[in-house]
C-alpha cells in the first residue's frame, strides 16, 4: 500500500527519471528517500480517512511522530468546525478528482491552528480503482503573514491623503499611490517607469539633481516646500519629504517620496497677511480720519462764517471762497482715502446718473486741467435703492483711475442704462477711457487689495473697495483694458440690480 502512495507522489512531483541508469537503484527506496527529504508534509490516507503514511516534514509541521498518527483518522488534523470539509474531499477523491492548492486551516498536535495549502490526489490500484489518497501540504503561515502585512501596508499607502511615490536613484517612478494620482492627475499606469521630472515645472529641474545627490549619500530631505506641476499644467505648492530606500546590505536602492499639497495653506497664509495689512491700514485710517475730519469740519464752518461776515464783493470774500473750495478738495480726498466706512444708513432711492453728476462736479477741475473731454449718455430711467455714500465712493474711485490714466488728455465716456435681462434687472454703468490701459498680466489683479500700478502714488485699495461695495449691493464690477498704442484704454462696467440682496440690509459684523 505504501508503495502505491509513493508512486503517485513522485509522478505528481514530476521528478525526471534518470536517462540511462547504469545500476538502477531500487525505485521504491529511492522514492521513499525523496518523500522523506521533502520540505512539504506528504501524507497518504485511505478513502475512509485513515492515515497510512507520514513523512518527516509532516512530523515537523504537525508535531505527530509517524507512530502516533499512522492508523489514526485524518480528522485528527482537522479542526472540529472544519471537519465537514473532509466529506467533500473524500467525495471528490472517490470520483477520481484531484484537489489542488486548497487553502484551509489545520491543527498541529499542540492544538495550534495554522493556514495551509493542500493538494490531494486519488491513488488508484492496478485496475484503476481509487483506493487511497495522497496529500501534499504546504504550511503557508509565513506567507500569509507577509501577505497580510504587505496588503495592510498597501492599504495604508493607498488610503493616505499624501502622495506616496517611490523612484529609482535615476529618478524613474516605481510606485504611485492613489493620492499621487489625485494630486498630480497622472494614473499609476501613466507614471510608473517614467521620469519623476514629469511633475516638475521646467524651471525647477535642477532640484531633482540635488535631491538625487542627497539620496545617494543616504540623506533624507524633510518638509521641503516647492512647486510641482499637475498633468493639466497647473502649478501647485507641495511640501515633500524624501527618504532613501535601503536594502538589506545597506545599499541605497531608491527613494520614497511623500508629498503634501499645501496650496490651501499657502493661500490662507497669504490671505492672512493681506487681511492683517488691511486691518492695520484700516485702524490707521480710522485714527487719522478722526484727527483730520473734525478740524476740517470746524475750518469749513469758520471760513463759511468769515465769508458771511465780510463785504460781499470784497477781496476778502473772494479769498475766503477760494479757501473754501480748496478745503472742499481736501475734504473729498480725506473721504476717499480715509473715509471707507460702511454707510449703515438706510438706502435711499436715487438716479445713478445723479450720483455720477455729483462725482463729475467734484472732479471737474482735475478733468479740465488734464484736458479730458467727458462724453456722458445717461439712459437710466429708473431710480435705484442704494446707499448713496457707498455708490459715490465706487464711482469716485473708478473716475479717479480714469483721470489718472489720461494725464495727456483723452476722452472719458460714461454711459448708464437700464438693463432688463434675466436673472436680474438693474442699471449698468460703463466708464470708458482712452488712457494708457492696464497690462494684461496686471488686469487680473486690479481688484486685489494693495495692488496698484501707480507706484507710490497709489494706495491699491480703490478698486478693491469698489468691488466690495458693489458685491455687497448684489452687483458686479468688471474691467477690460488694452495697452495697444493708439487703441489703448480701459472700460469698467458696473452692474447694480434693482433688487437689493437681503444680506445688505442686515447689519454685518466684520
Amino acid at each position: 500500500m505504501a508503495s502505491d502512495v509513493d508512486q503517485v507522489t513522485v509522478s505528481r512531483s514530476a521528478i525526471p527519471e534518470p536517462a540511462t541508469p547504469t545500476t538502477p537503484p531500487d525505485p521504491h527506496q529511492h522514492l521513499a528517500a525523496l518523500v522523506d527529504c521533502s520540505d512539504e508534509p506528504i501524507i497518504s490516507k485511505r478513502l475512509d480517512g485513515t492515515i497510512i503514511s507520514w513523512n518527516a516534514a509532516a512530523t515537523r509541521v504537525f508535531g505527530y511522530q509517524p507512530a502516533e498518527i499512522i492508523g489514526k483518522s485524518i480528522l485528527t488534523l482537522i479542526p472540529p468546525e472544519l471537519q465537514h470539509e473532509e466529506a467533500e474531499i473524500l467525495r471528490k477523491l472517490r470520483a477520481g478528482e484531484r484537489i489542488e492548492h486548497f487553502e484551509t486551516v489545520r491543527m498541529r498536535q499542540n492544538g495550534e491552528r495554522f493556514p495551509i495549502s493542500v493538494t490531494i490526489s486519488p491513488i488508484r490500484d492496478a485496475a484503476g480503482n481509487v483506493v487511497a489518497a495522497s496529500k501534499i501540504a504546504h504550511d503557508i503561515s509565513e506567507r500569509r503573514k507577509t501577505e497580510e502585512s504587505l496588503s495592510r501596508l498597501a492599504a495604508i499607502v493607498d488610503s493616505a491623503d499624501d502622495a506616496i511615490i517611490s523612484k529609482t536613484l535615476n529618478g524613474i517612478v516605481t510606485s504611485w499611490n492613489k493620492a499621487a494620482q489625485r494630486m498630480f492627475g497622472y494614473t499609476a499606469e501613466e507614471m510608473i517607469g517614467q521620469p519623476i521630472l514629469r511633475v516638475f515645472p521646467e524651471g525647477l529641474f535642477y532640484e531633482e539633481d540635488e535631491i538625487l545627490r542627497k539620496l545617494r549619500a543616504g540623506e533624507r530631505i524633510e518638509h521641503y516646500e516647492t512647486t510641482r506641476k499637475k498633468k493639466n499644467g497647473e502649478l501647485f505648492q507641495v511640501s515633500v519629504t524624501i527618504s532613501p530606500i535601503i536594502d538589506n546590505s545597506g545599499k541605497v536602492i531608491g527613494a520614497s517620496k511623500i508629498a503634501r499639497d499645501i496650496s490651501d495653506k499657502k493661500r490662507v497664509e497669504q490671505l492672512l497677511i493681506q487681511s492683517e495689512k488691511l486691518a492695520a491700514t484700516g485702524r490707521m485710517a480710522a485714527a487719522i480720519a478722526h484727527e483730520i475730519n473734525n478740524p476740517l469740519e470746524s475750518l469749513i464752518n469758520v471760513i463759511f462764517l468769515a465769508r458771511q461776515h465780510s463785504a460781499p464783493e470784497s477781496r476778502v470774500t473772494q479769498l475766503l471762497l477760494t479757501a473754501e473750495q480748496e478745503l472742499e478738495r481736501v475734504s473729498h480726498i480725506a473721504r476717499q482715502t480715509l473715509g471707507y466706512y460702511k454707510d449703515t444708513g438706510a438706502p435711499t432711492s436715487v438716479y445713478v446718473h445723479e450720483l455720477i453728476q455729483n462725482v463729475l462736479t467734484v472732479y471737474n477741475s482735475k478733468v479740465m486741467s488734464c484736458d479730458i473731454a467727458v462724453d456722458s449718455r445717461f439712459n437710466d430711467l429708473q431710480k435705484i435703492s442704494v446707499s448713496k455714500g457707498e455708490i459715490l465712493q465706487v464711482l469716485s474711485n473708478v473716475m479717479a483711475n480714469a483721470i489718472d490714466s489720461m494725464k495727456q488728455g483723452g476722452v472719458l465716456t460714461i454711459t448708464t442704462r437700464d438693463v432688463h435681462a434675466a436673472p436680474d434687472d438693474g442699471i449698468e454703468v460703463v466708464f470708458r477711457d482712452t488712457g494708457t490701459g492696464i497690462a494684461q498680466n496686471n488686469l487680473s489683479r486690479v481688484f486685489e487689495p494693495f495692488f496698484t500700478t501707480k507706484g507710490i502714488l497709489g494706495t491699491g485699495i480703490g478698486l478693491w473697495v469698489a468691488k466690495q461695495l458693489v458685491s455687497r449691493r448684489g452687483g458686479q464690477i468688471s474691467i477690460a483694458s488694452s495697452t495697444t498704442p493708439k487703441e489703448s484704454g480701459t472700460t469698467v462696467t458696473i452692474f447694480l440690480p434693482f433688487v437689493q440682496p437681503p444680506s445688505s440690509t442686515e447689519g454685518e459684523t466684520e
Partner: protein
Amino acid sequence: MSASESVPSLFVGFSRFVAADEPARASSELVWSDDRSQTEDVTRSKVLIVDDQRLIADTLAEILGNSGFDAVAAYDGFDALEKASRFQPHWVVTDVLMPRMNGVELAIAMRKNFPNSAILLFSGQAGISEILQDGHRQGYQFELLAKPIHPLKLIERLREN
C-alpha cells in the same frame, strides 16, 4: 453694560446728573438767531447741534441761525437731552464719538423721549460702524452724514423734510 440697558437709565438720571456736575452748562447755552422775535415763529425749524468739539457745535449753530433756523448747541449727550427737553427741537444733529454718551445712545434716548425730533448723525470717523450696529441690533437706524460736510449741504438736508 450694554447700550440698551444704559441709555434709558442714563436718561432718567441725566438732569440730576447734569445739575450736580455742570451747573453752569445751562447758562452757556447758545441760541443763534438773527431776530429774537422769530424764535416764536412756528414755521422756523429748531435744530439742536451736538458735538463735544465746541468749535464745531458753536459754528454750526451760528451758521444755521444765520440761515433761518433756530439752532442750539450742546456739547455732550446729557447736555443735549437736557436742552432738548426745554427746546423741543425738530432736528438733532449729533456727532457720534463723544465721551460718556455716544451719539447713537443719545439718538436712541431722543427717539424714546422726544419721538417728534428727527435725528441726523454726523461723524468724521470710520471706526463708528460698531456703535451704529449696536443701535441696529436694538432696532434703531439713523441717517449718517460724513464729516466734513459743507454747511450749505447740511442746510439743504435739513430743509428736505
